[in-house]
Each structure stands twice: as C-alpha cells, then as structure tokens.
C-alpha cells in the first residue's frame, strides 16, 4: 500500500495508521452486531456500546505489548478487542456460552483474558483502578517491565478510590496509565453536572504526568500514549491521559430515547464531523496512503468476520448447569 518513494519510517507509520484504521473498523462492526443481537432479542441482559470511542482503545492498545496489562469498564468491548481478543469468543461470552472468554460466567461487562493481559472489564464504576495499580506494582516489584493501562469513563472521576490509587501510584512510581474517556455523559447526565473544577489538575495535584488529547483522532491518541507508556516503562512513574470523546449510542443498548439529556443534532454533529473512522479514512485517502477499493474490501471482510463470529456464538452450547459451582474458589 505504501509507495516506493516513502522513507522506511514513514512506511512504518502508514502501516500503523492502516492497522489502526482496520482495528477501529473491526470494533465498530463488532459493536454493530452486538446491537443487532440485542435488537433480535438474542442477547441476555444489556450491552454498553463503544461506538464512537474506538480511537481511544485502539490508539492506546497499539502502543502496548501483548503482555502489558489493561483493565476495562462496563463499556469494555473495544478495549478487549484492541488488546487482542477474538470476536468469536467475545460474542460467545456476551451470549453466556461455554466457549466464551469466561465460560459464560462473566458476560459483556466482565471479559477477561490473561493471554492478552486483560485483567478484566469491570462493572463497578472505577472498580478496576486498584487492580490496574496493583498490576503495575507487581510489574515493578518483579521487574517484568510491563505497563498497566486503566481505562475508565469520566463518571469514575466521582469515585474516591481513584484518588487513593493515583496517590499510591505516584508515591511508588508505578508504571500505570490512567486513561479517562470523557464521552460527556455519566449514564444519562452531562458530566459538567457531576464534575467540579478541572479534570487534569486532579492528576497533576498528585504529581502525575497529565495530558489531554482529542479522543477522536487516533493518530494523536497513539502519539501521546506512546510517550506516556515509554515513560512509565522506563520507571518515570504514572500518568493520566484525558481522552475527549463521544458515545454515539445510549448508555446501553436499551437507552433509545435520549433527547431529555442530549439533542439529536449534537449526536449528528459528532457522527458526521468528528467520527474517528471517517476522519482517518478521509486522511488516508487524501494523502493517497490507501485507496477506496481496499478500504471498502476491508469493510466487507470484517463484516463477514463479525457475522461468522456471531453465528459461531449463537450456535455454541450453553455451559452445563453442573458448572455453576465451579471456579468459586481456585
């Protein structure tokens, strides 16, 4: 896809952008199928879609090694996929099937996978801040060089434990990055109604390296994340990254009528003007780094992959009920 005249470094960058484009698209198409599953009443429970926020997970996870750690949230499908999870086992978990990542015991909000360093998605807002910090603590004490990334939404800014662990992380100089995805809405309430003062200074008050980035620009997210991760990895301590982003869907798939908390026009503006995938696509085409046909082909390819993965999950067996008491204790 790259031309012969480009320098190797540039070619490396182009490969990265294309890889990130494909990964963002994969997440979006996965989530589209999740919505489909819900609409078709095939999914038990609910799901919290990540559509619109793909650049954050992808830009950050692209800077991580496979054995680096992440913790995720109730809106976690994007993080898990970006860290390397397979769509088929993800879908299976969402449907409560035996072949799911957690044998069906976790579901949408609890996908965990040691093979990709995923310590688990967490359904308590800010619930994994301690876990991520502890993983960074292990990495430091055992000298493994791993970095831990703690993803959370801006709603977690209201939880005291976040400030406790940021204090601990800075005292111990731990290799952990706290990634705040500000998608503007704490469930059904605009964050400005729940968040006093300034966000970044909450982190700088503890001495953390702190930065804000346009969370719709995957290249920008990747670039700043790379610096913060490298810094953490070489022992310079924790960081806080505020990613300004937007949740296209409701708080969960059932949150359809949203006009009492935000306008359709606002949603439309983000979708048309600030979409991370459309904007990267536009950039790639303008710069002639990709051609329309290839990107379209990827779209079809991934769509098929997601459908196949979903069908695998639908056909997969439920766990036998004799498994209900298994795994309570190790």
């Amino acid at each position, binding site marked *: 896809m790259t031309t012969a005249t480009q320098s190797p470094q540039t070619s490396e960058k182009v490969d990265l952008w294309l890889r990130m484009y494909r990964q963002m698209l994969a997440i979006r198409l996965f989530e589209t199928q999740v919505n489909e599953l819900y609409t078709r009443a095939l999914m038990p429970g609910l799901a919290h879609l990540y559509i619109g926020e793909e650049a954050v997970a992808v830009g950050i996870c692209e800077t991580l090694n496979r054995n680096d750690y992440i913790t995720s949230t109730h809106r976690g499908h994007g993080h898990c996929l970006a860290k390397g999870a397979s769509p088929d086992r993800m879908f299976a978990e969402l449907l409560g099937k035996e072949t799911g990542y*957690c044998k069906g015991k976790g579901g949408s909000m609890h996908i965990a996978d040691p093979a990709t360093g995923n310590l688990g998605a967490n359904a308590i807002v800010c619930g994994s801040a301690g876990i991520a910090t502890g993983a960074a603590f292990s990495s430091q004490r055992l000298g493994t060089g791993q970095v831990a990334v703690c993803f959370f939404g801006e709603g977690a800014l209201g939880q005291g434990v976040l400030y406790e662990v940021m204090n601990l992380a800075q005292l111990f100089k731990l290799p952990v990055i706290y990634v705040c995805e500000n998608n503007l809405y704490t469930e059904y309430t605009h964050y400005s109604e729940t968040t006093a003062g300034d966000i970044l200074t909450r982190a700088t008050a503890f001495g953390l390296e702190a930065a804000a980035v346009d969370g719709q620009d995957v290249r920008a997210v990747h670039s700043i994340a790379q610096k913060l991760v490298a810094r953490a990895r070489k022992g310079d301590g924790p960081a806080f990254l505020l990613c300004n982003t937007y949740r296209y869907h409701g708080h969960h798939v059932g949150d359809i009528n949203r006009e009492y908390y935000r306008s359709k026009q606002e949603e439309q503006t983000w979708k048309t003007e600030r979409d991370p995938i459309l904007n990267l696509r536009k950039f790639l085409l303008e710069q002639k780094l990709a051609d329309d046909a290839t990107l379209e082909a990827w779209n079809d390819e991934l769509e098929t992959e997601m459908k196949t993965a979903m069908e695998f999950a639908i056909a997969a067996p439920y766990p036998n009920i004799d498994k209900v008491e298994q795994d309570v204790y190790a």
Partner: protein
Amino acid sequence: MPDTADRELTFAQAIREALAEEMRRDATVCIMGEDVAEAGTPFKVLSGLVEEFGKDRVLDTPISEAGFTGLAVGAAMTGLRPVVDIMFGDFITLTMDQMVNQAAKVHYMSGGKWKVPMVMRTTLGATRRSAAQHSQSLHAWFCHVPGLKVVMPSTPFDAKGLLKSAIRDENPVVFFEDKMMYKLKGSVPAEEYTIPLGVADVKRVGEDITLVATSSMVQVALGAAALLAEIGISAEVVDPRTMWPLDEKTLIESVKKTSRAIVLDEGYERYGVTAELASVIAAGAFYNLDAPVKRMGAMHVPIPFSPPLEDVTVPTDQTVFEAARTLCGRA
C-alpha cells in the same frame, strides 16, 4: 519431640513468626498497610519485620484502605502474594468493594482464569474501651460472600499454622485476630507446621454440652467449661477455626454426642455467624438434640464506650456458664 515443642509464644509473636517464615520461603509475599513498617502496627504485631525484609516488602501505605486493598487485589492477580493489614476490623467497611466485588469475584467472573492469592489481616473484639468504631466484630460480612475464605484463630498455635496456610492459599482469605488476645501465650513448636483451612479443633473434650466458639469466644467458652465442671457438667468446646471453609462434620458429631449446644461468637447475633452455625447443628443433629441450640453473641447495639455498658454487650465466662447450666436443666 525436641525441647522446643514446649516453647511459648504470644498470639502476636505467632502471627509475626508465620509472616517471617512465609516471607523467607516465598519472595512474592509482601505486607502492606498503615504503619506496618517501623511502627510495626499500633499493636506491635509486625515489629522487626521491616528490619529483616526491608521497606520494599513491608510497605507503609497512606490511610487509604480501599486504595491499598485494591492495589493488593491487582498485585495478587499478577504474581505477588500480598498480606494486607487493616488496623481495626471496623475499617473493613472502607475495603468492601475491593473485597466483595473484586477479590471475591475475579476468579469466578473470569471463568477460573485469574486468581487472587491475597490475605487480609484485621482485628475484631470489644472490651478494649475503644467505642463504637474500633470495637466491632464484622467477620460475618465476609462469611456471607462466595469466593472469600474467613479464618478466626483462637490460640497462638492455631494463629501461626492457619496464617501460613492462608498465605499459601490461592484465594482471597480474610484473617481475623482478636486484639484482646495478642498477649495471650500458648505453646508453639519451633518446627515448621501448617494447619489446613476447614478443620475444626476440639479445644476441650466433654460429654454433656457442646460450646461451639470462635476466636475471642474460645477463651470464654473454656472459662465457662471450667465453671461448669465445678458443678458436674462436662462441656465440650469446639472451635471451627475457619468460618469458610466450615468443618460441619466436627460440629455435628460433637452435638450428636452431647445433645446440647451453645454457639458463641463475638459478632452480632442477628443474621450472624451464630445463626449459621446453629442452623448447621440443628439440621445435622436434629434427632439428637435435647434442647434448642442457643446462640450468644454481641448485643444488637453499637459498642458503647462506658465500661459498664460495654461489658454487658458481649458474652462472658459467667453468662455462658449460666446459659449452659439452664440448657442442661440445672438452673
């Protein structure tokens, strides 16, 4: 047996020795909590450990129970074996999300892929004139949660052997120490030993009534048993030692033999440990019981400060003696 078999240690020394031995044995074991290093905790249970193991393994933390407990959960998932120190059992309230929603559930929610081999050491027990926020016995809260194990030693010997097992366990274990018991002395062999979790211990053999007692209440039960012996009632004292896993068999067998039982625990009676143990006995020894199982625990009040008020809130040798005598029809 060598002479050291007769060695006596205090409860606090036994705890410290268990930690030191496990830290020497396994470099991934570390201690974290408030004033655990040079201060060795307000109860001086950990004195000397930082000198041997350094501040990298005996870590003073800020006063952030939720924060450092959460950190311990993550550390346990990723290769360490943290032993968290929660100074007063009353402060477990601050750690509840980390213990109940995180530590207890990680293994199950991940389909058995992640595990959390950590220990939380904390205290229980009233009558130290510490008032309502430093005197509670809240162990029942953790007993209620699948995924957690709960250990309640009553002697220096048990404390050492059980703590070593707790540290080696692959699950989150909450270890309750009666703060009034730290100076209690008892025989602790110098040789290496562990006590498996889930095995009760008959602390005194008897025929007429079973006193099932936990932690601080074991000494009370033994005191009551001595008083009962004076009037010709032979009491058996059974200490479950761990609330979960629970050795139901030993409890039931004892009551089948004696046909009467009192269950003693310093937590609140209502919806508490005594209710659970009484239910186990009632179901398991129903046809052998000559009287309903009696429960004795803390009164259903916040622990008061004033000494005469505080003293009536928990069972004593005398109140247990009287209850047992009545239950045996000798009132």
